[in-house]
C-alpha cells in the first residue's frame, strides 16, 4: 500500500535549455490517461481548445482532434516514461481505471494498481505540478447506516461487501498517500456520484435496461451526475492552487423510482432474496453484467455531501436532473 518515494536523479529530465519555454501556469500540457474511453474523449475534446493535450491509452483514438497527440501505450510499460521525458507535462488527469466486471482480479489489480503506481512514480520524478485522479463515491459503499450525505472523511467501506471494488479503493488510497508525501504536486481526488450519459458504467447500463428491475419495498434516494458535469469538475480541479479530496454530485438527489419515471420505462419490483439468487445464477451463466453485490446500490443510500467542491473548487452542476437521467439514451 505504501509508495516508495522514488529517488530523483537530477540528470533524468532533459536540461532546461533543451526544453521548450514553459507556458504560463494553467496553460501547459495536460496528459490524460484512459483518453479513449467515453469520458476520456469528452475530457480531451474540452481541454484541447485551451491547452496542449497528450492522450495515453492502449486503445487507438481514431477520431481524435488534430492537435491532440495520442500515444497508444499501456501505462504499465516503460514507454510511458518517454512521454514525460519528451515534453514538460503540467498536469496529469488519471481516468485509466478499468472496471470490467468480467476481467480477472489479477488483470484488474495489475492494471489499476500497478499501472497507477508507475504513473505516480513519473509524476514525482518529473515534478508534475498537478495530478487529478478520478475516483468514485462508490468507494464509500451503500450501507444501511450511512449518513444521508457522506463527507470526504467518511470511511471507504465500499469493498466490505463488494470485493471487485477494492482496487478502486486502493487507487484512491494511493492517491491520498501521494497527496501527503509529495506536497510539490497539487493532488486532487474527485469522487463523483453515479455518472450517467453515453458512458458504459453499471449505473448507466442499469437505467438503459428496457424494463428496470427494482427491489420490492426499497426505493433509496440516489444522486446522479451527467458526464459533462464530471468533465466540468475536472476542469475546475485543474486550476492552479486547488488540491484535496472532493465529492462531486450532480443536481438534487431523487428517489430511484422518480428516475425511472423520468425515463418512462416500466419497472418490475423483485423481492431482495429472489433478486439476489436470480442475479447470482445469471452472472454464473454470463447473462448479465451486474454482479449480485451491486444490488445494494438500489437498496441502501450512498450519497455524498458536495459542499466542499462547490465552495473550494467553485464547481456547479449545469445539467438538469431530467436531462441527466435522459442522457443514458443518447445515441
Amino acid at each position: 500500500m505504501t509508495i516508495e518515494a522514488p529517488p530523483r536523479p537530477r540528470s533524468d529530465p532533459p536540461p532546461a535549455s533543451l526544453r521548450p519555454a514553459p507556458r504560463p501556469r494553467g496553460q501547459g500540457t495536460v496528459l490524460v490517461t484512459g483518453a479513449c474511453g467515453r469520458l476520456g474523449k469528452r475530457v480531451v475534446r474540452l481541454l484541447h481548445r485551451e491547452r496542449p493535450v497528450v492522450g495515453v491509452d492502449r486503445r487507438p483514438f481514431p477520431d481524435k482532434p488534430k492537435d491532440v497527440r495520442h500515444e497508444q501505450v499501456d501505462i504499465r510499460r516503460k514507454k510511458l516514461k518517454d512521454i514525460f521525458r519528451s515534453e514538460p507535462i503540467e498536469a496529469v488527469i488519471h481516468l485509466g481505471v478499468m472496471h470490467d466486471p468480467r476481467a480477472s482480479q489479477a488483470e484488474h489489480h495489475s492494471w489499476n494498481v500497478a499501472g497507477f503506481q508507475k504513473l505516480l512514480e513519473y509524476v514525482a520524478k518529473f515534478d508534475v505540478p498537478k495530478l487529478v485522479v478520478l475516483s468514485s463515491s462508490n468507494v464509500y459503499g451503500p450501507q444501511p447506516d450511512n449518513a444521508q450525505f457522506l463527507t470526504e472523511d467518511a470511511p471507504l467501506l465500499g469493498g466490505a461487501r463488494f470485493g471487485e471494488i477494492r482496487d478502486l479503493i486502493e487507487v484512491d488510497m494511493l492517491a491520498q498517500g501521494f497527496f501527503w508525501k509529495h506536497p510539490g504536486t497539487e493532488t486532487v481526488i474527485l469522487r463523483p456520484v453515479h455518472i450517467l450519459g453515453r458512458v458504459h458504467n453499471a449505473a448507466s447500463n442499469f437505467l438503459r435496461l428496457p424494463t428496470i428491475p427494482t427491489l420490492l419495498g426499497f426505493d433509496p434516494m440516489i444522486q446522479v451526475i451527467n458526464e459533462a458535469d464530471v468533465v466540468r469538475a475536472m476542469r475546475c480541479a485543474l486550476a492552479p492552487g486547488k488540491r484535496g479530496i472532493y465529492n462531486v454530485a450532480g443536481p438534487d438527489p431523487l428517489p430511484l423510482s422518480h428516475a425511472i419515471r423520468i425515463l418512462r420505462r416500466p419497472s418490475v419490483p423483485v423481492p431482495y432474496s429472489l433478486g439476489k439468487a436470480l442475479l447470482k445464477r445469471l452472472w454464473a451463466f454470463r447473462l448479465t453484467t451486474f454482479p449480485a453485490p451491486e444490488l445494494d446500490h438500489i437498496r441502501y443510500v450512498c450519497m455524498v455531501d458536495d459542499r466542499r467542491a462547490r465552495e473550494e473548487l467553485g464547481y456547479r452542476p449545469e445539467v438538469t436532473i431530467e436531462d441527466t437521467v435522459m442522457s443514458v439514451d443518447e445515441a
Partner: protein
Amino acid sequence: MAETSRSLARIGGRLRSVAPLARRLFDSAASSVDDWMTSKLGEEFNDRLGRVPLNLTATGVDPFGMDPQWTKYALASVALLHRHYFRTEVSGAENVPSSRVLIIANHSGQIPMDAALIGASLFMDVEPPRFMRAMVEKWTQTLPFVSLLFSRVGQVVGVPENAKHLLTNEEALLVFPEGIRGISKPFSKRYQLADFGLGFMRLAIETRTPIVPVAVIGGEEQYISLGNFDGLAKLLRAPNIPILPQVLLPFGALPLPTRYRISFGEPMRFGGDPDDDDSIIEEKVFVVKATIQSMLHRGLKARKSVFF
C-alpha cells in the same frame, strides 16, 4: 441478459395494460379517502398542510426522501388517533420556536405511540405547523417497506451527521434520550425517567439549538407491562419483549384508550464546548432531565383520571 430483459419487458407490458384501470381505481380511492379525512379532521387539516415550511428539491421530495404526499396520509391517520382515540390534551404549544428545535421527551408505552402523537401535535396544535423529524434505528433500513415508509414520512437514520444536517435546515427534531430503556419500562416504574444519553446535549450545543422539554402523560397506561422476557429477546435478537397480559383479551393488542397529555416546556438554551468531558455535559443533561421529571410530577398531580 437480453433474454431476461425481454421476458421482464413482457411482464412489464402486461402490467401496463392493467395499469390504467388500476390507476383509475387508485385515484378514486385516494379522492374518497381525502374527502373522508377532511370530514373527520376539518378544513383546518388541509389549511395547515399548506402552511408547513418545506425544503423540497426539484423532484418533489426533500433531500432525506420525505414526500409531502406520503406524510399527509401518515399524519392524517395519526391525527385521527390524536383527536378521537387518545383525545390528546396539549399545553404550552406556544413554547415551540418556529426555527430549529430539539424536542426532548420522556419515552413510554412499549410502542412508540408517543412519538407519533408528539408529531401530530407539532402539526395540529403548534404555530406554524411543523413536520416533525425523528431518528430511527439503523437496522430498520434493512427491512423492505419499513425503510421506504420511514424515509418517505421524514424519519432518518440515527447517525449524528443526519441530526446536524436537519437542525441546520431549521427542522424540528425529536429525541428520546432514554432510548429503549424508556419505552420498555414495566408498569411499576411508570413515569420514573431512566438514564439519559448525552448525545442530544452535545448536538444542541454544537448547533446552538434550543431544547424544548416535553412531558408525555398517558403512554405508561396504554399497555400494562409486568416486565420483560429477557431470555427470549436475546434469542430473537429483539431489543426487548414485554410481558403484556392484556393482549390475551379480545382487541387486547390495541393500546388502551388512555387520555394523553402532552405539555411543551419553555425552551432551554445551553452554551459551552460540545466536546467537553462527560461529567460537564452530564450536569447540563441533568438540568433537562429534572425539568421533564418535575413537569411529569405536576401533570400527574393535576390528572383526575387516566381515561378522561
